[in-house]
């Protein structure tokens, strides 16, 4: 089966740097900014974006990035195998702040819908923005990303793999053709 490399390590770094600049520009600085990654790879991307922001804005607070687990808010809990939740770690309160949600792949939009529900239980942000490394289309909800690393139109049968050195040992994004194997969780077409 053909595996095509779509993004290399340098491409990912450039995309995250651009996203960090765009976040700072739209937020007019780092004031009241919270960056929350959605486990698993969104958390690492959020931490990298926060790191880049700290390089650009040395005054940025140390507690800028956290994680927001959405497992308990998913609408497919009875349709898939049991998911083990990951920790939620919100570094500061989110009330009246701008929250940037970060995920690796934006697909159906169901994960983000769940994330919005989870956020509502944590507080009332002033605004919620969405940053993703890859937007592959096929939305099932009226959700769009504010900051996109790479738009990657794909067939529903294709599989997008985001590899990050923190868990995969290397950085990269690949696309695979249709397969009989079980697709990756984030790339699975959901009912």
């Amino acid at each position, binding site marked *: 089966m053909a595996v095509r490399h779509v993004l290399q390590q340098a491409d990912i770094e450039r995309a995250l740097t651009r996203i960090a600049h765009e976040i700072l520009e739209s937020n007019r600085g780092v004031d009241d900014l919270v960056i929350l990654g959605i486990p698993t790879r969104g958390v690492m991307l959020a931490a990298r974006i926060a790191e880049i922001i700290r390089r650009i804005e040395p005054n940025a607070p140390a507690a800028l990035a956290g994680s927001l*687990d959405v497992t*308990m*808010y998913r609408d497919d*809990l*009875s*349709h*898939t*195998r*049991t*998911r*083990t*939740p990951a*920790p*939620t770690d919100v570094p500061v309160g989110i009330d009246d702040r701008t929250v940037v949600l970060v995920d690796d792949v934006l697909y159906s939009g169901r994960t983000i819908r769940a994330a919005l*529900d989870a956020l509502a*239980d*944590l*507080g009332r942000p002033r605004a919620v923005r969405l940053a993703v490394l890859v937007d592959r289309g096929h939305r099932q909800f009226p959700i769009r990303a504010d900051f996109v690393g790479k738009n990657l139109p794909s067939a529903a049968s294709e599989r997008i793999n985001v590899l990050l050195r923190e868990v995969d040992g290397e950085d990269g994004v690949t696309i695979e053709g249709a397969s009989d194997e079980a697709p990756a969780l984030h790339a699975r077409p959901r009912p």
Partner: protein
Amino acid sequence: MRHLLSTRDLGRDRAIELLDIAEDMAAVQQREVRKLPTLRGRTVVNLFFEDSTRTRVSFEAAAKRLSADVITFSAKGSSVSKGESLKDTAQTLQAIGADAVVVRHQASGAPQTLATSGWIDAGVVNAGDGTHEHPTQALLDAFTMRRRLHGDASRGRGLDGARVVIVGDVLHSRVARSNVWLLDALGAEVTLVAPPTLLPVDVSAWPARVGYDLDAAIDSGPDAVMMLRVQAERMHAAFFPNSREYSRTWGLDDARFARLPRTTMVMHPGPMNRGFEIAASAADSAQSTVLEQVANGVSVRMAALYLLLSGEREVAA
């Protein structure tokens, strides 16, 4: 997970997974909105053939915080008191559409029967059966110990090397049984200390040491001392001469408590017989985890219900 009937067949990985999920559930309890939408539309039936406030309320809170519909059914005042059988009750619950049944029963093995008889499709949680097991109590005890020992670094860890002394009426205690299996699976060393008359005959096969001298156990400086309630209601024979003698020999009194290291946890599954198996000074001390155990019970039961009710239903084995 299809059912939660005992800790004996739980295994280390599953137990740690359950405790880790309970960590997430505990985090939710610290929030302003303590509710999750996870089990919306699911029905949990609390089927209590035996009186219990603590466990029933804990399961009820756990199910409600996961947004499940909860039906509490106590045998008193129900058709069970008119002679309805467990089978008929189960089939009624099946007709109502119960997704999970939390069952407490005075007969050892009743939850097992409910889970394996084919009378009902629901997942079954054992909330205490006779003198057999009480798995969620053991899990909440392990959760409490893990948090006291490892704090924020608890996730993913067992209780390797922790020394736990379980004291008292082991014979009638389902809590002790469930704890022995679970603590062993998690890597803890368990010592049972009890009057010989209150130890089961098959105790030598358990993964635990057995001792008869509470003072020696106290002086060994264990990480946790778990006092069991003397279950007078289950005692149909004389197991010790009188309560004063029991208290003097097997009770955690002021003097014994004073000799314990300040870091030793004092645990009790409740309800406590103060001044009998445990002195008030120990029960109310900073070392006592009694109220933490109650609070953690809700988190652990939320985790159990989550594992039971999320995911595609596994086919019954």
